[in-house]
């Protein structure tokens, strides 16, 4: 395993950890979409680049890059579809003020 591949793979694991922490600690759905759609895509791209550097120039590394490109399109599109469904069915975004509705409450 090359050193560069291991370092890039570890950075990708860090971004996936950022995604998990964001899913746990952020206050409502729209902020959690922010964590998943961007940080998860970058983490997966970095991990797959690290595996590609370990593999070398073969058909397997071409397929790994294909998975990376597909996830780079599909993950933000999926998050966008879910967010559009949430905002159209009336989920209220979270606010800091005390007199606002509770986070996660729904009104149309």
């Amino acid at each position: 395993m090359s050193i560069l591949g291991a370092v890039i793979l570890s950075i990708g694991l860090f971004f996936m950890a950022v995604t998990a922490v964001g899913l746990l600690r952020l206050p409502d759905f729209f902020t959690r979409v922010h964590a998943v759609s961007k940080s998860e895509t970058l983490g997966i791209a970095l991990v797959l680049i690290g595996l590609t550097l370990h593999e070398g120039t073969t058909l397997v590394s071409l397929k790994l890059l294909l998975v990376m490109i597909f996830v780079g399109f599909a993950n933000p599109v999926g998050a966008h579809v879910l967010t559009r469904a949430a905002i159209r069915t009336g989920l209220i975004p979270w606010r800091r003020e005390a007199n606002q509705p509770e986070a996660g409450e729904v009104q149309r």
Partner: protein
Amino acid sequence: MTFFVAVAAVILVLSAIAFHRVAFGETIYDRLLASGAIGTNFIVLLAVIGFIFDRPDMFVDLAISYALLNFIGAVAAGKYLERHGSDEAQEQHP
């Protein structure tokens, strides 16, 4: 080899943290988002398992098909909820 086993263990722990949001999420959208994140984690996990067992040529094909299924599932659930609304919206406005 040992490095890949450690990477797979880390990915499993991160997926378990995301599973907390699937089990105890506040709205159905949180559950769907977290399950999509778990599916995206498992794409990488399949590729790493291929390197653990020295058969990356087989497991990479599995990862490709799993990525396609994950994307189709998220988009189908999102379109359904956009048309019919969730249970929380029905409670507020019957």
